């Protein structure tokens, strides 16, 4: 009897466990769905006065996007903006995944064209972005409508004009006898600086975006100064990278710079910290980094003056040229439930005083009123003449069809520096990536 009772108890315990086995996952599932449901409802319950903003951050300095949005909240106390900052190196994939999953922020920071993961055109093609109104159209930089949308519609509101050339430590440049004016005197100065344990350029050789930016800066005077529409020709298959003398010369110049000792020691393995350390301490004179960095460097390296400079062209060629384009834009998520609030923010951000304020926060050039901009005396004084003469064009990879082309250039240049690849091989890989 005792054992029977034991058996009965055990049987009852089994029944209890049966219920438990079913109940645990069921309750867990209910909790999980309950959680997601409540999250979903809270995001939509904010009405038109609440929205979220995604942007990329790459350092500890407060993002200009966040500063602008905080200014908006100050002037509009009934508005609440939720910030979703993402590390720059994973921003593209996070943005794409969130858009695909339908849970991206209401306002997202994008880039024009189709050359990167955050580029507007592929996102428009997938139906993820909302067309914007006239305020955004008025901010379109000249000749860049095709990279901000399709069929006459605009899907991104340009935030600032970014120059991509050189940022130099002017204090260090003066100490080195002044910044070289042309490509041959540049080589001389590289050798002189190398012998004193310094370098003209700080390069993040192990960070492909930096090697790619260097190669494009070299191509500015060699390709795009002579033929600003070169990308259109490549798209129409009237030109190829491998068949372009300008591009070949640009990549051969990488070898010239390396042989002349223009880069810091161990440049092939350098990261972005090599640039910030080198430029801030003055052991390197300049770096191939986006122009707004001058402001951050100047605040980090107290005592040194920083400025933006074009890469010196061949002597007498008259081909000095810089890249100046709106590289970032505000876009509205097509699946957003707070489009009115998002649009109100974009309209506010498009006002001339806000575009001016944004450029000042970031150390860039304003997207509107550039013709009246006072270049003299500021960090942009060395490129003012080129800008006024119209000797500038958009950053080339904005117009490239996919991110694989830029990747082929960037990793290829890394290979040229380490001796693994020849300029021809790199250019062929770029053509293959373009046509894929």
């Amino acid at each position, binding site marked *: 009897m005792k054992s*029977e009772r034991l058996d009965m108890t055990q049987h009852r315990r089994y029944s209890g466990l049966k219920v438990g086995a079913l109940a645990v996952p069921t309750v867990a599932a209910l909790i999980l769905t309950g959680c997601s449901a409540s999250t979903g409802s809270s995001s939509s319950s904010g009405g038109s006065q609440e929205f979220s903003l995604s942007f990329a951050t790459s350092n500890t300095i407060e993002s200009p996007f966040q500063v602008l949005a905080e200014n908006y909240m100050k002037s509009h106390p009934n508005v609440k903006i939720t910030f979703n900052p993402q590390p720059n190196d994973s921003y593209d994939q996070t943005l794409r995944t969130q858009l*695909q999953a339908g849970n991206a922020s209401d306002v997202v920071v994008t880039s024009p064209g189709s050359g990167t*993961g955050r580029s507007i055109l592929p996102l428009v093609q997938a139906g993820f972005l909302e067309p914007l109104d006239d305020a955004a159209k008025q901010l379109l930089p000249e000749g860049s409508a095709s990279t901000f949308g399709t069929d006459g519609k605009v899907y991104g509101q340009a935030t600032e004009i970014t120059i991509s050339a050189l940022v130099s430590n002017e204090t260090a440049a003066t100490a080195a006898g002044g910044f070289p004016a042309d490509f041959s005197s540049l080589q001389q100065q590289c050798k002189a600086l190398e012998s004193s344990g310094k370098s003209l350029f700080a390069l993040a050789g*192990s960070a492909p975006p930096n090697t790619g930016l260097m190669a494009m800066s070299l191509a500015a005077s060699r390709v795009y100064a002579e033929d600003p529409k070169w990308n259109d020709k490549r798209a129409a298959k009237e030109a190829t990278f491998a068949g372009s003398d300008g591009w070949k010369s640009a990549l051969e110049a990488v070898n010239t710079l390396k042989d002349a000792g223009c880069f810091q020691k161990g440049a092939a393995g350098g990261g972005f910290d090599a640039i910030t350390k080198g430029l801030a301490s003055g052991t390197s004179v300049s770096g191939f980094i986006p122009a707004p960095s001058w402001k951050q460097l100047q605040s980090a390296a107290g005592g040194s003056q920083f400025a933006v400079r074009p890469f010196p062209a061949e002597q007498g060629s008259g081909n000095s040229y810089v890249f100046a384009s709106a590289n970032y834009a505000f876009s509205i998520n097509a699946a957003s439930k707070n489009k009115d609030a998002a649009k109100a923010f974009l309209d506010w951000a498009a006002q001339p005083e806000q575009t001016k304020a944004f450029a000042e926060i970031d150390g860039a050039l304003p997207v509107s009123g550039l013709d009246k901009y006072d270049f003299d005396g500021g960090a942009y004084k060395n490129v003012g003449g080129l800008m006024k003469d119209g000797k500038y064009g958009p950053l080339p990879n904005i117009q490239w069809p996919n991110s694989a082309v830029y990747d082929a250039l960037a*990793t290829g240049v890394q290979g040229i520096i380490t001796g*693994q690849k020849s300029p021809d091989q790199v250019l062929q890989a770029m053509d293959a990536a373009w046509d894929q």
Partner: protein
Amino acid sequence: MTATMQPKSEAAEAPRRGKRTPGAGENTRPRRGPMQFGHWWWALPGIALVFAIHYVATGIGGFFAFTNWTGIGSFKITGWTNFEAIFKDPTKLGALSNTLFLAFGSVLLGNIAGLVIALGLNRVVKTRYILRTLFFMPVVLSPLATAYIWKYIFDFDGPLNAFLTAIGAGDQAKPWLADPQWAIWTVLVVLVWSSTGFAMVIFMAGLAGVPVEVEEAAAIDGANLWQRFRNVTLPAIRPAVAIATTLGIVQGLRVFDPIMALTGGGPAGATETLATLVYKQAFALGNFGGGAALALVLAAIILIFAVLQQRLTRSNPED
């Protein structure tokens, strides 16, 4: 084998012994017994999760290998195009050879080092418990965090080059992780360092089962140290060798985070592996279809080598 058979036979006998319980003879569920606690359907939630997370997700990923999906928007089914592209592209074949080199290199060196340390710390040494902990530490530490420490060590301005300069070998200083010849060996050093502790633990478990008497008998018979190891110890720890090498190869083939942190696959693809390439293709370059195809190739390679490895190292052909 005997060890695993015992509970089974006990379980089989259990219902007979259970006759002492009145009415047990009529019990239509003879599996109830001291060794039979639970029902198969208790595993259902777990099975459902494993099925959904592993098999369904992998199956869907496998489907995208046959498409041109970019990770967003619509896609077209492109058949075997992605696979053709993999085997035509020299950089992807380079990544394949790097993957195999790093996997087999780390298994070989990691296991030899693990075995040597396990033998050394098996008995005798007084500080063996502390040393075991120290050698096992790399397995416990985050591979990403330790990779960044190694990256600092191998940096051009890092301690390794400083040491070389200090001993007068400054001309040997180089950016180790950006040197096309040395980068992959540098990565291999880090992988061996991190896998040695794991192999050591498995071998120590194996060595614990080797009877001292047999070793002593062999010694009395005049066998030297190598002969004792070759003919007594090694055959006894063969199952441990099989496990350590199989797990090592599977781990080595799919290794991702240390390489991504150390070199990102660079310089110019010199340390690119299939795993880093899958990530780049699928996420960084927006070629989800191509990335999925690469992942499928990687999975197939891991499966083939795991099976091959099991067959080569099993102690009993009837296993």
